[in-house]
């Protein structure tokens, strides 16, 4: 060997340090990136939820921390007629309000789907009941339903003389229930209407044209084109709407606070009343926890039942 033949410096890549190897390891990277959002969810969502569920199994009161008492709260509630009344109230309220909101919301969406003058303006106005804070609209409805100062009663009795006595909106159980349903439907229509409108706009007009050429009438177009193609978004909106309506609190609390002797108590308002003013935190939490099975059931039914592709694309498509 001479000076002209030197061993070539072989460049060997330096061995990765353990930190580099760690950060290159995919599972670790994934976990690290998800940590901020997962952490937020854990602290602000899971912890309160878990703590609330745990509270339902204790005898906590506002003054004292609770001790584990197992299912005692739930057994006691199952023997409480007011609790069962609130369950039936909630189911009735959710069912009727949802039907109302969807019927009217869909109708509005279909109307708005056409070319109207000032379309954008009308759509903006339509959103108002939804974006006004619930408490404010609840107070407004409370005034509308007031036994002495209702504007509707005033118009009907003092101006038009159609009746001699003021309308009793909130004085009897069924009147109060229907009044609350009306207020809730008024509040909820915009959400349904705007979302369904968005869904309607994704349906290609060429489908309608093709159907028209084939001789389909309006009803057949609606049933064969609109409904199936709207199903996915309908399932989502229905799920959300049921969740919101079932756990509604502000409207009922601001207008009747549970109404004529507990006949408009929803599970949410009863849970609050038992827990905070009544200072029975454990029992209130138990009532709130017993809402979970109903909500889960409703979500599963509407999401998986309606979202199935058979509805969307015909019998053979599973």
């Amino acid at each position, binding site marked *: 060997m001479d000076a002209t033949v030197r061993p070539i410096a072989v460049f060997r890549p330096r061995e990765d340090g353990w930190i580099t190897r760690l950060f290159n390891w995919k599972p670790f990277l994934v976990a690290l990136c998800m940590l901020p959002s997962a952490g937020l969810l854990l602290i602000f969502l899971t912890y309160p939820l878990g703590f609330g569920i745990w509270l339902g199994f204790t005898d906590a009161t506002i003054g004292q*921390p609770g001790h584990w008492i197992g299912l005692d709260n739930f057994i006691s509630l199952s023997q409480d007629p007011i609790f069962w009344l609130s369950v039936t109230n909630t189911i009735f309220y959710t069912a009727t309000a949802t039907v109302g909101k969807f019927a009217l919301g869909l109708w509005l969406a279909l109307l708005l789907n056409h070319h109207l003058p000032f379309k954008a303006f009308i759509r903006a106005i339509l959103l108002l009941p939804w974006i006004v804070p619930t408490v404010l609209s609840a107070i407004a409805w409370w005034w509308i339903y007031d036994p002495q100062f209702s504007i509707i009663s005033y118009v009907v009795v003092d101006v038009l003389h159609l009746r001699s006595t003021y309308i009793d909106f*909130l004085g009897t159980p069924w009147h109060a229930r229907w009044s609350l349903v009306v207020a809730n439907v008024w509040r909820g229509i915009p959400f349904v209407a705007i979302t369904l409108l968005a869904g309607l706009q994704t349906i290609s007009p060429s489908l309608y044209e093709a159907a028209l050429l084939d001789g389909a009438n309006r009803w057949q177009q609606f049933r064969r084109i609109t409904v199936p193609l709207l199903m996915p978004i309908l399932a989502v909106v229905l799920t959300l709407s049921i969740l919101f309506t079932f756990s509604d609190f502000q409207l009922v609390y601001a207008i009747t606070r549970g109404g004529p002797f*507990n006949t408009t108590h929803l599970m949410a308002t009863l849970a609050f009343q038992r827990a905070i003013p009544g200072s029975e935190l454990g029992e209130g939490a138990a009532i709130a926890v017993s809402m979970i099975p109903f909500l889960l059931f409703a979500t599963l039914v509407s999401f998986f039942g309606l979202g199935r592709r058979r509805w969307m694309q015909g019998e053979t498509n599973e």
Partner: protein
Amino acid sequence: MTSGLSRRDSLILGGAALGAAGVPIIGARAQAPTPTDVPMADVKPPELPIEKGAALHVIRPAKFIDPDQVYWDINTKRFTDTTGIPVSVNYISWEDLRPQTAVIANTGAGADIVFGWAIDPFLYETKLVGMNNLAEYLGKKYGGWFDIAKLYGTKWKTNEWHSLPIGGGAGPTVYRISWVKEAGYDRIPDDLDGFMTLCQKLKQIGHPCGFSIGHAVGDANGFAEWALWSHGAMVVDQEGKVALDSKETIAALKYVAELYKYMIPGTIAWNDAGNNEAYIAGRISLTFNGVSIYYVLKNSPDPKLRDIAQDTMHQLVPKGLAKREPMTAGPMNAMLFKHSKYPNAAKEYIRFLMEAPQYGPWLSNCLGYWSEPLKSYAKMKFWTEDPKLAPYANAMDTIYYDGYAGPVSAAASAVSANYTVVDMFAAVATGNSTPEAAAKAAARQAARYYGRA
């Protein structure tokens, strides 16, 4: 400067506004004169050496009428000027006060003194500093404590003071003099039959009475309790056993069912403001309420409302079968927590507030909104100067309280918070239940709350 107001003008205006706002405060710096109409014994205050560097944090309920806050602030400022101890006072909304008290008690941090509601002193007994020396001093100096003040201030059936009652709010009868006269009465009858006939006649002349039987925390519970106690019924007996299902309760239920026919329609949907609104609008002639209705009417810029104030009179609620007026006054209690770093300073603050130069003006300017727990203050001139305030003067001189006749406990406040008694009356009054069934159901419900206690 394009607008009409120049920078100099706005500075002058601002300075004038600040100066104007500062005038009452400056006046308050001077030592306040002792009111001459409060009889006092010559007693030495307890020795409370103030801790060095003391500063106090206090929370109390939010005002319902302005003078409540104005005079409390004046008194607090005078305390700071006299002793050099800074005090910060937070006015908390009524619904939030009890949960906040719970947080303070459970975390051992936050306010030193809580002026709280209802039975909270009993819930947090073990966390409160004893008030014996202060209570004995004030009792000796100002003629003694009223029964209800002692009931809430001391541990059940002892002389151990765990809190100091500051004042209570009552709900006597508020009525329109001219309309009651038109119905043929000079004053509200004290017997149940007479009261029923009066309400019947009031409805006949087109000016009915109105009492809330809906979910109104204050008014509905007040009315329901009056109905029970005036018939000799009660929720629990002295041993704490539920005594709601009794023939006295059935009689009360039947009475209210008939009275409901003569009330203005819709009271079942009223909240606490319902009867205030209806009375001020001239829709009802008679109700049970605190002095808030009269206060609003008297101080209104509208002459029509001031006329209604002229035509308004107050009277203690009808006795019915009870030996004393079946009315209670929900007290506000000063609770000093053990976690406070400056207990002596805190006690000094409470003592200062309860002394005549401070308490007197606060009490008199609230026009009877608060009733005093100490007997001497009942002799103040303002109680008799406006004869309409008479029923509020001795509001705390009563044997009745929330949860009468059993021990004061969380169960009693759970019963009123859940409207157990109110709903019982509402169900019968609207014809949705028979008296017997409603009484049984309500007794079962009450037993659930008392069974847990």
